[in-house]
């Protein structure tokens, strides 16, 4: 019984943090031009759960703001990015708004032009407040 309660608590806690995620942030390889961003924006805006998309070529991220209480599953995101012709490197969920994501990445230093060690260069971001890894 104690184990069941613990599992239930952990499950509900996980569910509540998942449901509260406002924005999905993805590290994507191959984003180098406005046309790339245009295609991905079009794809992401096609999801009913999507409430806005932000693409930063400089930081190689695609951020999708979610409608209240909605989400897009990781495999669906992975398929969407792959079918758009790009490589999904990582997925994170944050309770930041799209404007907050824009403001945050705007303050970050641009990623180097071609970096091969950690593709997306967001190693430390999972430790930031509000960031949850999913991919």
């Amino acid at each position: 019984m104690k184990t069941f309660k613990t599992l239930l608590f952990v499950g509900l806690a996980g569910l509540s943090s998942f449901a509260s995620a406002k924005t999905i942030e993805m590290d994507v390889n191959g984003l180098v031009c406005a046309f790339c961003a245009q295609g991905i924006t079009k794809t992401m805006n096609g999801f009913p759960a999507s409430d806005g998309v932000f693409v930063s070529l400089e930081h190689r991220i695609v951020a999708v703001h979610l409608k209240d209480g909605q989400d897009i599953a990781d495999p669906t995101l992975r398929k969407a990015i792959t079918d758009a012709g790009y490589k999904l490197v990582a997925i994170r969920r944050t309770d930041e708004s799209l404007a907050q994501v824009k403001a945050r990445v705007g303050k970050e230093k641009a990623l180097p032009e071609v970096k091969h060690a950690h593709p997306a260069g967001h190693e430390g971001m999972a430790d930031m407040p509000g960031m949850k890894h999913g991919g």
Partner: protein
Amino acid sequence: MKTPFALGAFALVAVACVAWTPDATAKPIAFAKGKTVMAEFGGDTMNEFQAFYAPTYWSSVGVGWTQLTSDVDGARTDYVYLRGNLLAHRWNLPGAQANVFVWGGLGNATSDDFAGSELSREAGVQFDYETRRVYASFKSDLQESAHSSHRIDTLQLGWAPYAHDYDTLATWIVVQGRTYTGDIYKGTEGALLLRLFKGGTWVEVGATTDRKLQAMVMFNF
């Protein structure tokens, strides 16, 4: 006009494109479910118009018109064609992308060099590599019919003075070298171009080494 079929088809395509709702790219495939419309005026030797629809990120189909005017004897050849493009391979790197495209098509050729019109075929390949600051591409395009054969090889090297983002204007300085077979141009035709794009709109303008205008517009939507 000497090539009513070509011009008629060109007009038809232009009307179709306007009806489609506007946008286009230098790659034959822009993005999945995307449309590309491109028109190029190349130094009095080559004029080109193409419109493609991409059902997937690795394929597109469409129509095109290429007009070649010989710098040697002034003879003009027009190719109007249906074409399919494939992305043979793509490398998605952190901060860079490289692609190999191939294409082929069938169409109709008319020319000052022969009477009437002939079935034409087209085949081509493009290699490109780009980051947000440098760009290199090589394209080879062969068009031929029973009495004509033209291959156009184009090498472009580009440099961006600053790295653009999605919502900012991209500016590129591009150096181009182009060779033609089939007595279109002797030697290599060089050009210096200024390329600007933002969102789905691309404008390129410059001059060839013969001081002739080269310009291109492209829309992706």
